[in-house]
């Protein structure tokens, strides 16, 4: 389950919205819930308004922000992300609302 993806290099995912085009390529869009530990990506979209949307934005979770999955709780939920200079925990159903552009592993 643990990914050994290093992810230290600059990839093709660039800052901004809707950068990740569908189809084959190095960059793939996925939901935050599907991300693995230590995987890094850039937030593409947050499909949520209301209180939750606002709380996410308050924590710096806006399109263009780079995040890293730090760990998951013992029961796999919630998930802790590194955002800007802090670590933020989200429930999986909240993580579902966030789409992330992730660099694909090279020759997995």
């Amino acid at each position: 389950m643990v990914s050994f993806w290093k992810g230290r290099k600059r990839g093709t995912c660039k800052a901004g919205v809707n950068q990740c085009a569908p189809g084959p390529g190095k960059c793939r869009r996925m939901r935050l819930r599907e991300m693995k530990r230590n995987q890094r990506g850039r937030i593409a979209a947050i499909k949520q308004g209301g209180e939750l949307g606002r709380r996410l934005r308050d924590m710096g979770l806006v399109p263009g922000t780079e995040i890293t999955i730090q760990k998951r709780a013992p029961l796999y939920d919630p998930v802790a992300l590194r955002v800007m200079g802090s670590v933020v925990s989200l429930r999986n159903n909240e993580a579902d609302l966030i789409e992330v552009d992730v660099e694909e592993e090279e020759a997995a």
Partner: protein
Amino acid sequence: MSSTVKIALAGNPNSGKTTLFNTLTGSRQHVGNYPGVTVEKKEGVYHLEGRSIHIVDLPGTYSLSAYSVEEVVARDFLVNEKPGAIVNIVDATNLERNLYLTTQFFELGIPVIIALNMIDAAADRGIQIKTEVLAERLGVPVVPIVARNGQGVNRLMEETVRLVNRTGVWQPKRISYGDDIDHLLLSLEERVKEAGFLTSIYPARWIGLKYLENDDQILAQGRRENSELSADLEKEVAGVVGHLRDTLDSEPEAVVADHRYGYIKAILSEGVIVRKHDLGRLYLSDRLDIVLTHRLAGPVIMGFIVFGLYHFTFTYSEWPVALLENFFGWLSGFVDSALPEGALKSLLTAGIIDGVGGVLGFVPLIMFMFFGIAVLEDSGYLARVAFMLDRVFRIFGLNGSSVMSYIISGGIAGGCAVPGVMATRTLRSPRERMATLLTAPFMNCGAKLPVLALLIGAFFSANRAKYMFFFTLLAWAVALLVAKFLRLTVLKGEATPFVLELPPYRVPTLKGLLIHTWERTWEYIKKAGTVILGISIVLWALMTYPNLPPEKERAFETSRQQIMTTYGSEVVRQVEKGSPPFAGEAEELHEELLELKRERTAMDLRYSVAGRIGTALEEVTRIAGFDWRTNIALVGGIAAKEVIVSTLGTAYSLGKVEAEEHISIAETLAEDPTWNPVVALSVLIFMSYYAPCFVTVVCISREAGSWKWGAFSMVFNTLFAFALATIVYQVGSLLYLN
């Protein structure tokens, strides 16, 4: 130039705001509440060269919208009281996120000074911040500080005073939100200004922005002020909102947030932050987390830490508790010997000293408990506990932070619901918090243990440990299921988002811990103490009055004389003048008189209001198997559960029974024909879950912000417990009798 300066301290949670406040004001703090809400309001004074700087510590918030109570409180304070300046404390290791709140202060137009905190931690992480560049770009003073050791704090205050005294009109900053929104804001601003719409309180552009963000509080205020203009503004906003949805597929709030972060990014873009390491580097805190929240090791370590807290609290508070008990025992004895027999003495000893002693008896416990929690909270571990357990507690409509409160309340048998209820303050979601504080009293607190020990010892002595364990597990099951029930009924509503920050681990400062502990303890003594004194007097009166009618008194006196005449006058004199132990016939007489006195006390109790209530309730409680004696004890237990065993003793004419020495009462109950294991089980079930003791009810009311909830917990819990006890008794009797 005024000699007093009033400033507000504001910033994100975990940015070190409280630490800075403690460093600035030390023990010169005043803790109160903001009107109408349970958010703490802390004020203090800092002295700078003969000047007093009055500091108000605003609640920690991430933003200034109107969603949470904390945010409303902070915003209201800023606009209504217009402090001379906002000292905005900002975590240097997390500049980008922290400045999000700063941008919102800028838009309010109150002078801001940035206290750039934890520059030492930032340096450790290889982050260097060019404060001059940052100050220049933000257009406000920036002072690097280390709140923990006071480094830079004096300069911060000097700069703050300078800022407050600076002449000139302050202009709210105008942040650009893109063409569409900027255009709209300009138009709104013009109309607001023209009409003088709320402009005495808020900046005009800010009002426009809040209309755009659909801010409930401002909208309501606007409609009251000028409903026509408000409707016009709303209409104008609606047009642009529709346009934004069509073109950007985005809500205005999201667009606004994006631009705020964009503004911050632009400011931090080049030359402000110099990083030595890559962003992805693991710091000490992250490495600690690998172990402390590890899938397997994490929960085990958590178990040890929680047990440690528990052990610490209840072991080390033992001797100060005993000391206080001894003191009140001594005081009671002193009053007993100094005053003549009568109502005054009874009021002083049974009413006031026992009542106040009962409240103060909790004080060491609360101090130790809060010290322990403060350590866990300030170090950052409590957030990890919430993180690890959230998945389990969510099932029951709670969240991970509920667990602490449950454990303290007696989740490991022997806690206390008073600090447990107070500990729910660490929960930030209102409904989850209410559900937790209403169910925490179901746990087996220390005062319920003697009752459990007594009845289990009397009726299930062969399986003592098993039954104790069963009642502990049952308490958890009941608390969680009732929480679920409440969340589906009176506290209905979606789960509050659980977006929780896991702050880096930090070593707590002793000063912070002590201030934290003392504040909570003092608050408990002050608020609970006064109310409890009144209530214990009322309960004392209920259990004392009315006195026995004269003819019954006379009957007892006659019996007394009769007993005495059967012994010789020498023996009587021996007993009357001397004190136990006696020998031979004197001992017999002494025993007989004592027996009579006990009967008399039982009769008194039965004749009192409480006794009558107990007797009257027998009609109803019969279906759960309780007779009038049990009823009286349970009524008394509302004052404090400790009273149950001793009242039971009085009702069974056993004289004063100490909670620890219940051998005789256990024997009495075991042999009493009205008692059997089914009755015992039913009483135990009822006792565990009925109305919390008065101290807890007072705390629930305080924490929930209304007496309504205190009353709810008494009525609901009692009905619930009675239903449960009835089922146990009825089903049990059927099975037991066959």
